């Protein structure tokens, strides 16, 4: 298809040669194997017996597909509970950021109030500080709120984002004034305008912020390790590290657990590919 189009446009130079095309595919396929191969090996190992996993030289396929390794993960960890904890942590942070950041972003972009620039500069200054720097005092705050080993501890600091506010503000700035004026003339209040007029216009930015926040929250490890130790309130990222402690040499169980824990985000990605790509193009930051 695309080749015939290129031919019609008279653009088929040496770049279109068959040999070149085959060579390109060979390199790209080798690269793809390096990228995805580890997951295939993870899956195959997760279905083997322990003895089979540690035979040398390794065998490719399991003799018998041993799904019980997956059940083993759930008895070693409160696995489903930890998956749910991850979902709560990622979900609340994402929804919270979308609501809170968009409100602030709208005010910074479209409303005028004394101290606006100073406040915005303070917001921006937060972006410069690496997250590790904040962890000790953040931990002390969680302690003094009596929230150690709770779900709110997982959610809290990540609920507020200078980055999200900054990203959305840039989008609100691009909306022409006339649209908002028209709504004001119609007698709509600020909140109403924000909700029914402005928010729908920055949907792509909201979607991008949502996927980036969701992924960062799901992957977060350092913060949960610091505030929670009770297995029942750990997210799966931190839970897996404890699985590694208990089953340090039971590779099939380790692979089953790590595969299960990565699947939700991979599925989200495959469903929302466009938003992910857009999120990266827009943000250029992974948090």
């Amino acid at each position, binding site marked *: 298809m695309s080749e015939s189009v*290129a031919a019609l446009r008279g653009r088929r130079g040496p770049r279109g040669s068959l040999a070149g095309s085959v060579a390109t595919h060979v390199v790209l396929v080798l690269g793809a194997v390096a990228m995805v191969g580890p997951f295939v090996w993870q899956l195959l190992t997760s279905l083997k017996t322990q003895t089979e996993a540690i035979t*040398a030289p390794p065998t490719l396929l399991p003799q018998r597909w041993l799904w019980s390794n997956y059940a083993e993960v759930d008895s070693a960890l409160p696995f489903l509970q930890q998956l749910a904890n991850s979902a709560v942590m990622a979900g609340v942070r994402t929804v919270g950021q979308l609501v809170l950041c968009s409100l602030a972003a709208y005010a910074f972009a479209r409303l005028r*109030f004394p101290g606006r620039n100073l406040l915005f500069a303070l917001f921006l200054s937060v972006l410069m*500080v690496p997250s590790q720097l904040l962890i000790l005092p953040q931990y002390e705050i969680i302690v003094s709120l009596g929230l150690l080993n709770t779900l709110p501890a997982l959610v809290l600091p990540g609920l507020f984002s*200078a980055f999200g506010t900054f990203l959305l503000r840039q989008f609100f700035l691009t909306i022409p004034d006339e649209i908002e*004026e028209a709504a004001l003339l119609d007698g709509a209040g600020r909140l109403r305008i924000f909700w029914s007029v402005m928010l729908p216009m920055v949907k792509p930015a909201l979607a991008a912020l949502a996927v980036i926040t969701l992924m960062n929250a799901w*992957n977060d490890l350092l913060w949960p390790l610091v505030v929670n130790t009770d297995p029942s309130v750990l997210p799966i*990222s931190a839970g897996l590290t404890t699985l590694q402690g208990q089953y340090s040499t039971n590779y099939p169980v380790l692979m089953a657990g*790590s595969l299960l824990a990565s699947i939700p985000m991979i599925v989200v990605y495959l469903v929302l590919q466009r938003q992910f790509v857009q999120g990266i*193009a827009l943000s250029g930051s992974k948090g």
Partner: protein
Amino acid sequence: MTTVEDATRTAAVDHRPRRHWLDSGRSRLTAYLFVAPVGLGLLVFYLYPAVATFVLSFTEWGPFGGNTFTGLSNYTTVFALDTFWTALGNTVLYMLIGLAVVPVAIAIAVLLNREGLRGVAVYRALYFIPFVTLPVASGMVWKWLYNGDYGLINAFLSVFGIPGTYWVANPGTALLAIGVVQVWSQVGYYLIIFIAGIKAIPRDYLEAAELDGAGPLRRLFSITLPLLSPSIFFCTVISVINTLQIFDLIYVMAQSSTANPAFNATQSVVTLFYQMAFVENTKGTATAVAFVLMVLIAALTAIQFWLQRKWVSYV
């Protein structure tokens, strides 16, 4: 309430001295109410902690919160520690290995940009998967691949008669082994940026060069790369900031036990910080380490911005 007349003046006549309707008390209140939730959250959980860390890096953390001012002693303690300099050196190595992601991603982006290539969307999706994978899980899989006795990598090498090693337990290879996984996990992210960058290069430029007899390599180095330089600059800045903060992969692959012979050889500034703050409970020195990291990130970013004038071309 605002009148119709006032409202129509909005925005277009901002510069006029007449009081803007938005300056009314009620609008101000609305604005503050909109900003307050995030603003207070950032104040409590980000701005206050930043200041507190700075102050605490000059104090000794006593039991029961009794902190005493000790000047620069946390910093002098840290600078006298061999483990700190090892961690700092390792972190710079992680950063340098991590930068390999830029040429790798450019190479793949250039290949994917080949005219008439099929399956671009599939390749792009596959290359992106490691980036969305939980880093803890990736670390566990790679640790298994790197396993000295039963790992797939050693089995593969033995086919060619190459002796393997305990990749993440051997102090000579562990850092590189982790760095490779870091690059593997990040390629998809940079790939997307470079694909967009290459797409933005007008085909006419490349075709004109081709008509003038420039070969593929010449076109790459004389046209594609210079026009891509803003993206390359952006990616090196982001990559440096990110790998200077590397933690998850090291924690999972090499530091699950202090018995790992490569424990020190893989230590980064952030893993050292974590160990000081939450394992050894020497919080004062930990905050000093965190500040050194921030200064390092700021300095390397500033240097890159300064250097960009010499090689980045904005057309």
